[in-house]
Structure formats: structure tokens, C-alpha cells
């Protein structure tokens, strides 16, 4: 299967993941305690728990697909970015690969803290874990987008 096709699917999965984790993070960090009347309030008032399984599946699927197309990046794009001396872009991608890997390790805890009524300190843990995953997903999405702008889709 062509790398370009897989890259597009990877991007689409990332968009879905970005939307889900952003909804969940916003609803956790900016909850609303009254009926939602506006677009923003409806974003804040989603049933955050219902996103957890989807986020885990999307995270694993997006990371796996990213891992499959990573060799094409390593052979065809990183070399050029190094030749162009675009060190910040290169470093941002290095951080992306490590952040995504670290994120894989928190998924069991994230899953556990979204599946049952929790004590007060565990609610904080759940919120922070969600925030950490949201940060990783946003970082990865933006860095992937920037690198694709630099040299993507068969350029």
C-alpha cells in the first residue's frame, strides 16, 4: 500500500483523535453545571467518559500507523531536513516520537481512571492524565502537520 495513502489515513485518524481528546479535556478542565445554550457550552458539556475507549483505540491505531510509515520518513524526509539544517523541525519530530511512546505507557492508567466512580484525588489524576494525552496528541498533530508541509505527499 502506498505510503501516501497510509499517511492520509494516519492524518484522518489523528484528526478524529484530536477531536475526541480535545472534547474530553475541555469537558474535564472546564466543566459546565447548567444546561448548555451555546456551541462552546455544548463542547464543555459532553459526556466525557464516553470518549475514553474511542481515544485509546484511536491513539493505538494512529500510533501504529505512524510506526508503519515512520521508515519512509526516516529514509526520505529526515535526511532532507538534516541537509536543509532545519534543526527545530527535526527536534520537534524527535520529541513527537518520544512523547507518543511515553503516552503509550499511561494508557492503562488512563483507561482505569475513566471507568468507575473515583475518590477526589483520583478525579484529579484522571483530569491530569487526560491533559497529558491531549498535550501529546496536539503536539504530535501539529508537528506532523508542519513536517508534512515541509516535505510531504511524495514531494
Amino acid at each position, binding site marked *: 500500500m502506498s505510503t501516501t495513502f497510509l499517511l492520509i489515513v494516519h492524518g484522518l485518524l489523528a484528526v478524529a483523535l484530536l477531536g475526541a481528546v480535545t472534547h474530553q479535556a475541555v469537558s474535564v478542565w472546564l466543566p459546565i453545571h447548567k444546561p448548555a445554550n451555546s456551541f462552546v457550552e455544548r463542547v464543555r458539556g459532553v459526556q466525557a467518559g464516553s470518549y475514553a475507549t474511542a481515544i485509546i483505540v484511536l491513539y493505538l491505531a494512529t500510533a501504529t500507523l505512524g*510506526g508503519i510509515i515512520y521508515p519512509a520518513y526516516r529514509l526520505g524526509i529526515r535526511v532532507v531536513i538534516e541537509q536543509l539544517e532545519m534543526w527545530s523541525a527535526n527536534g520537534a519530530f*524527535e520529541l513527537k*516520537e*518520544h512523547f507518543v511512546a511515553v503516552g503509550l505507557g*499511561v494508557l*492503562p492508567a488512563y483507561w*482505569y*481512571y475513566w471507568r468507575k466512580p473515583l475518590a477526589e484525588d483520583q478525579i484529579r*489524576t484522571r483530569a491530569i492524565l487526560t491533559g*497529558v494525552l491531549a498535550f501529546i496528541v496536539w503536539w504530535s498533530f501539529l508537528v506532523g502537520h508542519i513536517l508534512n508541509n515541509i516535505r510531504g505527499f511524495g514531494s
Partner: protein
Amino acid sequence: MTTARAFPVFAIVFAVTYAVAYVIAVEQNYALFTYHPAIEEFGFLVEPPREGPAMYWYGWIATAGIVALVAGVIACLVPEQMAKRLWSGWSWAVPVAAMFAFGYLLRGFFTR
């Protein structure tokens, strides 16, 4: 401990151990296997590049995953009273520290 009571202990210890093991695996290059993308071959443990770059990222994740899995299972065997004292916040604090560590280790990319 029952499985239901053991899982939070497993999850916390897994998150902590995985993050620490991953940082060490990257820093010391303890990859369980190496991938050579140019020739599409895998090699066991760390191998030098062959006809192109060598990729260790998959191997670092595998190393950290196995270490964390073993540590998590062992942690499930501790007495329940001890397990109850385990702070749930370790599950995010150590991974966040690992992310800061990578930011520090890779700072050279942003200061050239």
C-alpha cells in the same frame, strides 16, 4: 489481591516503570531489536546501521513495555494495605517528568 483491586496498582506501576525504562532505553540505547528500513530487515538487540540508517525506536518501546509489564505484574503481588498507599498521581507525574527529560536531552536541536 483480586484482579479488580490489582489493576490500579498494575496501571500506576506500569506507567511509572515504562516512562523510566523508556528514558533509560533511549539514553543508553537498550533497544530490544533494530530495524534497518533501507533493506527492510530486523535484527535482535542493538545493531549498527546496515546500508542506511538503523531505527531503534520500536526496540526502545518494546524494551520499556516488557520491563513495565514485569514490574506491573510483580507489583500486583504486594499486600493490599501497601498497595492502597500508592499515590495515583505517580501515573502522570513520572511520565510528565520523562517528557521534560526529553525536552532537556533534545534541547540542542532548538539552540543551534
